[in-house]
């Protein structure tokens, strides 16, 4: 079975489409890390909240997730902005491990608020196009997964354009590189921090809308993603967008193959082992600069 090239390609492509979602979630995390140099432990919980938002928009309002993204992305941008500016920054006093603990506290709050309000029931939505399969030669892929793959690449390009071609991107890069210098030339560092956090959160909302048609939501779903997103970001190089994109796609493929080789239960181990090994032996990842 493993010698069959068609089968291998099918597994790889399936992994790629899962990896696209990882890449999207990780892009937001990479931006937040790259600019604020903080590890946002609440990232997965924000994804979970966005999934619930998309779920309820669909079930209560009949809004398709692909349409809901138009409201959710800006909404989550504002939410992320406020969260960083008025909760995370004041509570953490700018200290690294404090930020980690504050975001851990936030993730505990979000996860358990969801558990309290919406119970631990696993929820899915039923959209007609989820059952539409596209034949790509080696295998048939569910349409939403192809859309997610395309969107991940598009968002990657959009991020790159934003960072290199706009004044905002310039300001973000200036703050990421040299906080004090940026402040001296009149950039509001607190504002840029919050904008970056907001952008990272908006991308998470986008990922949630793309994920929901073929996935599910529970209050703990974020936790599964948070380690994967960290692995992706570490693998790609802290703060590197192209690294996060490629890292996410690669992780999806690795997960697909370790699932095939080791079975579903043991297969999850691949990602955690990669995480540990990369942190230990190549903390700069593949596209990043030396950090720690």
């Amino acid at each position, binding site marked *: 079975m493993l010698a069959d090239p068609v089968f291998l390609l099918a597994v790889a492509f399936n992994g790629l489409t899962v990896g696209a979602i990882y890449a999207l979630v990780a892009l937001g995390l990479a931006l937040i890390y790259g600019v604020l140099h903080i590890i946002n432990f609440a990232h997965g919980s924000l994804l979970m909240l966005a999934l619930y938002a998309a779920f309820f928009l669909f079930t209560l309002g009949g809004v398709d997730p692909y349409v809901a993204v138009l409201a959710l992305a800006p909404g989550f941008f504002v939410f992320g902005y406020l969260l960083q500016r008025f909760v995370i920054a004041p*509570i953490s006093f700018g200290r690294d491990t404090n930020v980690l603990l504050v975001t851990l506290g936030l993730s505990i709050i979000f996860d358990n608020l969801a558990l309290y309000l919406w119970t631990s029931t696993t929820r899915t939505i039923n959209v007609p196009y989820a059952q539409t399969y596209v034949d790509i030669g080696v295998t048939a892929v569910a349409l939403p997964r192809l859309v997610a793959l395309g969107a991940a690449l598009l968002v990657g390009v959009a991020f790159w354009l934003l960072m290199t071609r706009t004044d905002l991107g310039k300001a973000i890069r200036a703050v990421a590189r040299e906080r004090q210098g940026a402040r001296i030339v009149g950039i509001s560092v607190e504002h840029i921090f919050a904008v970056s956090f907001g952008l990272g959160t908006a991308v998470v909302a986008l990922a949630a809308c793309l994920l929901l048609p073929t996935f599910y939501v529970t209050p703990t779903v974020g936790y599964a993603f948070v*380690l994967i997103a960290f692995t992706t970001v570490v693998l790609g190089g802290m703060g590197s967008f192209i690294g996060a994109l490629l890292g996410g796609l690669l992780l999806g493929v690795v997960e697909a193959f370790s699932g095939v080789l080791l079975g579903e239960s043991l297969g999850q181990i691949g990602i*955690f082992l990669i*995480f540990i090994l990369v942190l230990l032996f190549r903390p700069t990842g593949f596209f990043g600069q030396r950090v720690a």
Partner: protein
Amino acid sequence: MRLRSGQAGALFVLAAFFLLLPQFVTSSYWLGLWTLTLFYALLGQSWNLLGGYGGQVSFGHAVFFGTGAYVSAVLQVKFGFNAWAGAAVAVAAGGLVGAFLGAVSFRYGLRGSYFALVTLAFAEVFRVLVNSWELTGSGFGMLIPLRPGAAHLQFTDRTWFYYLILALLAAACALVWWIERSRFGAYLVAVRENEDAAQALGIDCFRVKVVAITLSGALASVAGVFYVQYFLFVDSHIGYGPAMSVNALLAPLIGGAGTLFGPLIGAVALGALSELTTLALGKTPGVNLLAFGVLLLVILRFLPNGLMGLFRGRA
């Protein structure tokens, strides 16, 4: 190595309170609650040694707790070990896992948030492993057969479990108290405050951190052994899941990280808060942890030294 008079007084009151508690608390519900509170204080003290005194914040203390729980369970169930012998091996195994994890991550210079994330990843690796391995009961977990009697470390009278965890916690606090006043403790705090400066002064930071994480791992596995004997069950989510890692750090952070009584005070505060929220909002899942999360943020914002900071300000 002497207690200050204030501390001696506090210690006397604390000891009297906890020793006499079963005389007044006769309902099994409340006694169970106090037993669990002391259990969380013990788990928190183990985190406190590494995270509070040494400044190495761990997000995966379940890796040690779970090792203690699983090793003692597997030895008893699958290899016919006596519970006490199993417990001894389990605690050694917890220390060993700590030494290994510390040696690997500190050798490669992991600090701060990176160290925290790596401990979490290790806990996840262990969780997946025990969840897929037949020897560890895979998805079903490990069930310890009921064999009442002190020889099997099981007690029909739950008061004995209370005194057991009290004795274990007292021993852990004595160890931390001794470390706090030892040369090693001073090194540990120096590493927390400024590792580069400590290194420059000739402290072998790597060794100090590895010793700290070894002791911390052994202490957390004591908590794991107790848990298994108390509930006679462990599975991969209880043992190595993120909940136990969070429990380990909440009590010391809320009580006061890097203080001797911080974990105990934090555990008591969390226990009280948990009862209050249940009283106010009913026994709905998630409510307790929701309150814990809010309390954590409030403490981080207003009392960076935890509840102990309230006392220290006046002393």
